[in-house]
């Protein structure tokens, strides 16, 4: 699995209320949620994010509520992968369950700036900053997580396995 895109970089403790405010939870349609993604933190995000782009953030990304709408909104906005120094516990599990790739790579976060072009090879765990030429290492996805992400989430993965 390889992801390539422009980086949108944010700070620490990015909470699920700014990722998708509760006032928009009156829908669970991914595309409708995506229209309001990051709205309270960066009103310009939806206008500038392109398919395949990469979110980079400091510690504790996704803290706060358990709303699975948060990874759904980020994914539907076009983000291909999130690289952070660390993730909040519930978000971590929700991201994988909804098929949104996430990686913990503190060195990469420090070495990547907003607007950089980055390539992520999730199979080897290599993160390359094409803007600076620097490369970083992260844990590659274990096979079962790779399978969940490739099939689009836990539900799809279970359905495919049941179908055999």
């Amino acid at each position, binding site marked *: 699995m390889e992801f390539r895109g422009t980086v949108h970089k944010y700070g620490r403790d990015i909470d699920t209320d700014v990722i998708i405010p509760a006032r928009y939870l009156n829908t*669970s349609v991914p595309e409708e949620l995506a229209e309001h993604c990051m709205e309270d933190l960066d009103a310009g995000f939806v206008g500038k994010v392109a398919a395949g782009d990469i979110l980079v953030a400091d510690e504790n990304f996704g803290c706060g509520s358990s709303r699975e709408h948060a990874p759904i909104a980020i994914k539907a906005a076009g983000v291909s992968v999130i690289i952070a120094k660390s993730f909040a516990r519930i978000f971590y599990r929700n991201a994988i369950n909804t098929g949104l790739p996430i990686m913990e790579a503190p060195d990469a976060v420090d070495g990547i700036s907003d607007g950089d072009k980055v390539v992520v090879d999730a199979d080897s765990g290599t993160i390359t900053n094409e803007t600076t030429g620097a490369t970083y290492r992260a844990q590659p996805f274990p096979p079962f997580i790779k399978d969940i992400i490739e099939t689009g989430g836990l539900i799809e993965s279970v359905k495919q396995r049941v179908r055999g």
Partner: protein
Amino acid sequence: MIPLSGKTIAEKIFSAHSGTDAHAGDIVVADVDFVMGQDGTSPLAIRALENMGVTEVFDPKKVAVVMDHSSPSPIEGVSALHTMMREFGKRTGAKVYDVGEGVCHQLIPEKGHVVPGDLMVGCDSHTCTYGALNVFSTGVGSTDGAAAMAAGKLWFKVPESIKVTYTGALKPGVYSKDLILHLAGELGADGATYEALEFHGPVIDDLSVEGRMTISNMAIELGAKAGLMKADAKTLAWFQGRGEKTPNPQDPDADAVYERELTFDASAIGPQVAKPHAVDNVSPIEEVEGTPIAEGVLGTCTNGRLEDFAIAASILKGRRVHPDVRFIVAPASRQILLDAIEAGYIQTLVEAGAALVTPGCGPCVGTHNGVPSNGENVISTANRNFKGRMGNSNSFIYLGSPATVAASVIEGKITDPRKYFEGGER
């Protein structure tokens, strides 16, 4: 073979529910005693079940959906989600708590759905509230919630525990809310990520069950998976008459191993306030005193219980809410509303100028019931002050105890509540 050490509360509960000798770091598949979702998260769980082709829940007596976040519905889209939840209840037999019943985190223990020693998951991050009742309860997303509703079990990583002990005694005008805000300031918003907090000491023993729930409720604000306490005589008395389930309290072993042990002297802690826009941005009230406020909120799963109403009513009795302040009051459940009516607290608060809203999450989550205007400051008993949390990203939320909120709405600015208490010196 090296003898294994004693167990924490978390390790005890996971051992009992997984049929293994569970220790921190182990991954176990455990039976859950209850699964819950609210109106923000249940619709995704219900859709996930449909997607999996699952038409029944593992045990209708062990599943509930609660309409509390946007209740009564403020908008057509939510009305449709509420309908979906009601139909799910009819179809599967799962318990439905409809508009007016209250906040999920009050209802699940209040109605006896969980008892000490239980393991439960809820599709809401503040599910950790029942840790105060010796229940290992934790928040999960809707997909995990759906899996638990279908199978009655889920995989967990048994967390390490941080032991937090409070010595001394709370000074007049200082409450359990101040202790947990103080701890959030000490440990930070990710200070306990992936871990369980375990609370001990004479100060915890002295707290009411309600006061303890305030502490466990906010464990997630430190990133914790749970905020656990022992069940004592008070806990067991609280469960009397609440249902047919038999409590099975799990005490930690004397030689339990903790990742860290922290001790705080509660006598040295005064009222605390979390400032915008982070729960760990905490300072003693002296540093923010005088900050003007346009709105006060009493309620939520953190501080919407009878004791919180008693505290606020004791301060507001015979006084008036400042004319430039809206004071919104939301009991955590219908039963609490009834009890507060009977005790005269509602009369006192409404006479003082409070606007009473339906038992539920009220304005905390920003869906309705008191969205602040641009540039306004709010003082709230809630658990989160994230940017935009109350529905307007151009407003500023401060968090404090019910006493701090009551004192502040009288003066129209953040006010130290200790002046209303004999011996509440600074």
